[in-house]
């Protein structure tokens, strides 16, 4: 299979779906820009033009409502936010209307399949309002689906699924994944929501992660293998629906759980995953669950603080070592995947 970057996979999914279904359109601030949202909307714009890849005013709330109205009338909107932090301004229409539409109007009149892509993750000192990952906020509310693909193949397959389903979907994409390469099928084959993936097999500790943290966990696992610790990495792929079974099956085998996430611990992804285990197989846990998340402050800008703020492979290594009763410290330090990000923005 040929390889693509994560960004190319998203672009390809978009273009293929648009070619197959002319009700799909892309909308977002600057989607027609020469840089094309990290390259992901560039080809769609080149192929389908300004009639189907539309630049919009800076009006996140109205644009979400607009997309809902277009979807109600049979179109398929793909909204793009270059920063998921801006989606707080679109929360009302997405959570109070899109998520509830199908149910609130009786369940038999169809949904409003608005698909919203939000870019998350650290950049280069982007600071408190440009580094957040609000996936748990959207995933809390019944009626939406939320995905956070980690691999190029999943980025394609989940977007294809979103663009062919009837459910409003929020997809979060960590910007540091865009350059990442991987095998991606040529065809526009959907990947179902709610089905996790074992990213790496292991026996001693389970690391449940999503998006960027899957890669951090894999790198940690690689290093820990050298210490004789076998780490299983579970990539849930979607937060809602959440694949409880894959989490529980893994933890039932390993007895140890680390949850790694790029948002805060409280009421976040790490809380839900730990709760799933506590709800189904608490007796399987041979050690307390560990959560590797953001510390409880807003994101700082200054480089050393930002480095300390964001969780990464080194944190996963440390958490696993502790869970296995081994002292951390004597392993060579791992640089974060995201630490390779080149400025200047």
């Amino acid at each position: 299979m040929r390889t693509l970057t994560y960004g190319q996979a998203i672009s390809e999914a978009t273009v293929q779906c648009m070619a197959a279904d002319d009700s799909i359109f892309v909308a977002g601030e600057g989607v027609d820009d020469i840089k094309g949202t990290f390259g992901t909307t560039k080809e769609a714009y080149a192929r389908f033009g300004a009639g189907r890849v539309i630049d919009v005013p800076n009006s996140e709330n109205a644009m979400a409502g607009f997309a809902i109205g277009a979807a109600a009338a049979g179109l398929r909107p793909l909204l793009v936010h270059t920063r998921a932090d801006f989606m707080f301004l679109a929360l009302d229409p997405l959570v109070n209307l899109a998520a509830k539409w199908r149910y609130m109007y009786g369940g038999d009149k169809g949904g409003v399949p608005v698909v919203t892509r939000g870019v998350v993750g650290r950049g280069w000192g982007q600071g408190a309002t440009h580094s957040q990952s609000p996936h748990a906020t959207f995933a809390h509310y019944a009626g939406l689906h939320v995905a956070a693909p980690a691999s190029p193949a999943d980025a394609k397959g989940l977007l294809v699924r979103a663009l062919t389903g009837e459910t409003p979907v929020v997809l979060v994409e960590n910007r540091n994944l865009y350059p990442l390469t991987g095998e991606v099928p040529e065809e526009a084959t959907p990947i179902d929501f709610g089905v996790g993936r074992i990213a790496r097999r292991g026996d001693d500790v389970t690391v449940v992660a999503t998006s960027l943290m899957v890669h951090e966990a894999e790198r940690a696992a690689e290093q820990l293998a050298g210490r004789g610790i076998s780490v299983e990495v579970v990539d849930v792929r979607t937060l809602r629906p959440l694949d409880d079974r894959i989490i529980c099956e893994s933890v039932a085998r390993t007895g140890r759980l680390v949850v790694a996430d790029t948002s805060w611990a409280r009421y976040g992804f790490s809380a839900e995953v730990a709760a799933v285990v506590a709800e189904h197989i608490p007796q399987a846990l041979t050690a307390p669950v560990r959560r590797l998340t953001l510390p409880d402050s807003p994101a700082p800008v200054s480089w050393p603080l930002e480095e300390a703020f964001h969780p990464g492979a080194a944190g996963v290594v440390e958490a696993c070592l502790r869970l296995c009763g081994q002292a951390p410290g004597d392993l060579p330090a791992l640089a974060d995947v995201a630490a390779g990000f080149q400025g200047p923005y």
Partner: protein
Amino acid sequence: MTSGPARLLRDMVRIRVVEETLADHYRDEQEMRTPTHFSIGQEATAVGVCAATRPGDWVYTAHRSHAPYLAKGGDLTAMVAELYGRQSGCAHGRGGSIHLVDRTAGFAGSAAILGEMIPVAVGTAWAFARRGGTRVAVTFFGDGATEEGVFAESLNLAAVRRAPVVFVCENNLYSISSPLAARQPAGPTIRDRAEAAGVTAVQVDGNDVFAVHDAALTALRHCRDGGGPYLLELATYRWREHVGPGHDHGHGQGYRPVEETEAWIARCPIARAADALRDRDPGIDRTVADWREQCREEIRDAVAHVRQQPFPDVEALLDGAYQPVPR
């Protein structure tokens, strides 16, 4: 939809009788367990506008939904059933008074978060235009909703995209108990804001159903001709309390001067339309009385019918939350 003057009057009478009857049931039985915003006194806005639409046009509204729903031709029994929480309701009892819908009639939905349906109508209008054809989207909202940022965002978006959407502001001077003066500065009007956003806009006496209807025809034609969005600011007044069946003037609620309410009641849109028609049709009062009787019977039957209907099955509580998974 025919739209002769008598038809406009009749539609108003029907809505009035339906709402008055429902309000009585609501108050006396406490069986419609859904917050209900009556349009009694405001019938001319819904009727004047909706009668000007074509079946293919879509109407969205905010919480004050019954009158536009009925004026657009929404199924009466399904609405009553919705208010009574029955499975046969237009939203199968999931939505209640504030979430009416009748796709067949072109009533695309109502929602109770202020301003929420305004951009939705812009999106629908844009989708209509994209397909070609001359369908228009219409969105009703109150004066209070124009303070929500999304109203301004939607005007701008509609203007930039030249979407065939008619914004219908029912300016009844109040947002719950807050008078306009507490919420918007004196001087510029809602019409002015629309124009400053690039949307063609007019102010019309919202209790004059013929004036509203004429303005709506102009607005819809403007949209169908590719002229872009249009706003109607319609001055009107609600006679009852904000939510619920009661009258609240002179009952110690005190937010509306009794004289003000009485003056507006004197400007009853139904009485005014009848007055206007009386010259041409001296028998109009008799006709109106007959309509009243027919409508009373219609709503009486609907209520009686609906009360025999079953509630939704509790086992089906989760149905419709998500797209059904094919088995």
